[in-house]
C-alpha cells in the first residue's frame, strides 16, 4: 500500500512538471514535491497521537467539574478512566461558550490569542502541546480571526514515565489563560485539575468523554496524502499554493500556521479543476523577507490537511 503510494508521487507530479517546464520552473518544483513527501511522512508520526488510544473499550466514569469562565465554562477532561504506569494518556481542554463567543486557534489571525496552559504534574508526567483541531474563520470586517465558536475540545498528550503504584492517585493540574471574544474580549483564567487513579490494567475509555475526543480527532488536520503534489510559489504580492489531488474542491481555504504570512481577511482566489486546487493568497503587508516555507492547514469539506511547502522564489522580474 505504502509502496503504491510512493510510486504515485512521481507520476502525479510528472504531469505537473510537464506544464511547469513550459513555465521555465520545472527544476524548482521537482525538489519541492520530493522534499514534501518526505516531510509529510515525518508529520504523520507527529500527528498520529490522537489515534494511539483508539482501541480502547468504553465504560462509565464520573465527569470532572467544569470551571466557570466569562461567557462559558472550561474543563480538563481525560479520555480514559485511569492511569497506567508508564503509559501515555490523552487529555482535553473542553470549552463550552455562549452563542457567538469564541476562543482562538494556535494562529489567532488578526486579533486575540490562543489558550495557554501551565502544568503542575506529578514527577514522571510531561504534558505535550495542545493539538489544534481545524480552525474556523471568524470574520470581523475588515479583519479575520481563526478560532472556535461555541463548543470545542482541544486534546493533548501526556507522556508518562511515572511508576505509579496501583491504587494511588495522580493529580494533573494546569493554570489556563485564554481570551474569550465576541465583539469585545474578556480575559479568562481557570485553575483546572483532574484526579486519576493508577491501575496496572489497560485503562478503559470514559463513556462520557469518548464522543468529544472522537469529534476532536475527526476535526484534526491530517497529513496531506502521499499522492498529493503540493507546491507553493512566490508571485511578488501573493503566494500561489497548488495542490494536485484527486479530491479537489473549490470549497477550500488555507489557514497559515504563522502570523504575518498572508493577509488573513483578503479573499482567497480559488481556481480548481477536478484534479487541482490553486489558491492565490495575498501576502501580508508586514511580511518583509522572502518566505522559505508555506506552513498551514488546508481546510476542505471532507476535512483539513497539513501543508508545509517550500516556496519557489518569485520570478526575476518582480513588480511591486
Amino acid at each position, binding site marked *: 500500500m505504502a509502496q503504491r503510494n510512493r510510486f504515485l508521487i512521481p507520476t502525479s507530479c510528472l504531469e505537473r512538471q510537464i506544464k511547469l517546464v513550459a513555465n521555465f520552473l520545472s527544476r524548482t518544483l521537482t525538489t519541492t514535491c520530493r522534499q514534501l513527501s518526505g516531510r509529510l511522512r515525518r508529520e504523520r508520526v507527529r500527528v498520529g497521537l490522537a489515534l494511539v488510544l483508539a482501541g480502547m473499550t468504553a465504560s462509565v466514569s464520573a465527569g470532572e467539574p467544569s470551571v466557570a469562565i466569562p461567557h462559558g465554562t472550561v474543563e480538563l477532561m481525560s479520555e480514559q478512566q485511569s492511569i497506567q504506569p508508564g503509559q501515555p494518556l490523552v487529555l482535553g481542554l473542553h470549552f463550552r461558550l455562549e452563542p457567538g463567543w469564541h476562543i482562538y486557534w494556535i494562529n489567532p489571525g*488578526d486579533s486575540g490569542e490562543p489558550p495557554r496552559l501551565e502544568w503542575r504534574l506529578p514527577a514522571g508526567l510531561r504534558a505535550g502541546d495542545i493539538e489544534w483541531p481545524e480552525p474556523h474563520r471568524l470574520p470581523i*470586517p*475588515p*479583519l479575520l480571526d481563526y478560532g472556535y465558536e461555541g463548543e470545542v475540545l482541544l486534546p493533548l498528550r501526556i507522556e508518562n514515565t511515572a511508576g505509579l503504584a496501583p491504587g494511588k492517585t495522580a493529580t494533573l493540574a494546569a493554570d489556563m489563560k485564554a481570551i474569550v*471574544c465576541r465583539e469585545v*474580549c474578556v*480575559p479568562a483564567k481557570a485553575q483546572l485539575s483532574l484526579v486519576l487513579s493508577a491501575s496496572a490494567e489497560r485503562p478503559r475509555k470514559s463513556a462520557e468523554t469518548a464522543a468529544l475526543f472522537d469529534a476532536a480527532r475527526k476535526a484534526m488536520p491530517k497529513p496531506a496524502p502521499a499522492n498529493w503534489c503540493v507546491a507553493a510559489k512566490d508571485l511578488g504580492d501573493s503566494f500561489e499554493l497548488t495542490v494536485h489531488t484527486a479530491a479537489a474542491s473549490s470549497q477550500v481555504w488555507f489557514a497559515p500556521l504563522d502570523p504575518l504570512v498572508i493577509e488573513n481577511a483578503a479573499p482567497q482566489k480559488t481556481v480548481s479543476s477536478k484534479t487541482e486546487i490553486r489558491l492565490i493568497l495575498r501576502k501580508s*503587508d508586514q511580511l*518583509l523577507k522572502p518566505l522559505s516555507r508555506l506552513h498551514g492547514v488546508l481546510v476542505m469539506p471532507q476535512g483539513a490537511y497539513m501543508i508545509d511547502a517550500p516556496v519557489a522564489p518569485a520570478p526575476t522580474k518582480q513588480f511591486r
Partner: protein
Amino acid sequence: MKRGFAGIVTLVVMALSILALAVRVGEPAPNFTATDSNGKPHTLSSYRGKFVVLEWHNQGCPYTKKHYESGNMERLQKEWTQKGVVWFTVISSAPGTQGYVTAEQENDYMRRMNAAPTAALLDPTGDLGHLYDAKTTPHMFIISPDGVLIYDGAIDDKPTPDPADIATSRNYVSLALTEAMSGKPVDTPTSRPYGCSVKYAH
C-alpha cells in the same frame, strides 16, 4: 453635536486614493489630517523632522488596559515625547462600540490615567484606521523624520492581557525608536499586532 464627530476626521483624499494599496515598512507613510480631542487638526506631513508614533487605542479593551492600568503606556508616552517624539493616540472605535469616546470623555480619561501623548486623534469613522490598516488595540506604528514607516506591529513580544508580563517583555516600540535615533536599522520592523480587534463600524 453627535453628528459633528462623524465628520471630525478629514483625510487627505489624494493620499487615500493613491496609497489605498498598502502601508508597508520602508515605504512612505500615508499622509493624513485628523482632529484631536481638543478640536485641533494635525497633519502628518507637518511633523517632518520628528519621529511620529501612532498608537491605536480602546480604553475598554483588556490589552489596552494592561498597558494603561499598569502605567506602562503613560510611561512610554512621557519618555518618548520628552525625547522629541510626536505621539498620537488614535481612537477608531465607531459610535456605539467599545472604546468610542467623545472629546470630553477622552480628555477626562487622559487626565485620570495621567496619559501624556502629544494628542489623542478621534477617528469615529475609522478612516485613519483603514488608511493604516490598523488591526488591533494597541497596534503601533512608527514614522521616521523623513516620513517613512519604520515600524508596524505590536507594542511588545508578550501577546497577553496580563500586566505581569510587561516586566519581562521586549518593548518593540522603545527598541525601534532607540535604534532609529542612533542611526541603526530597526531590528524588528514588523510583528503581529496583538490585542482586541479595532471596533470599526460595520
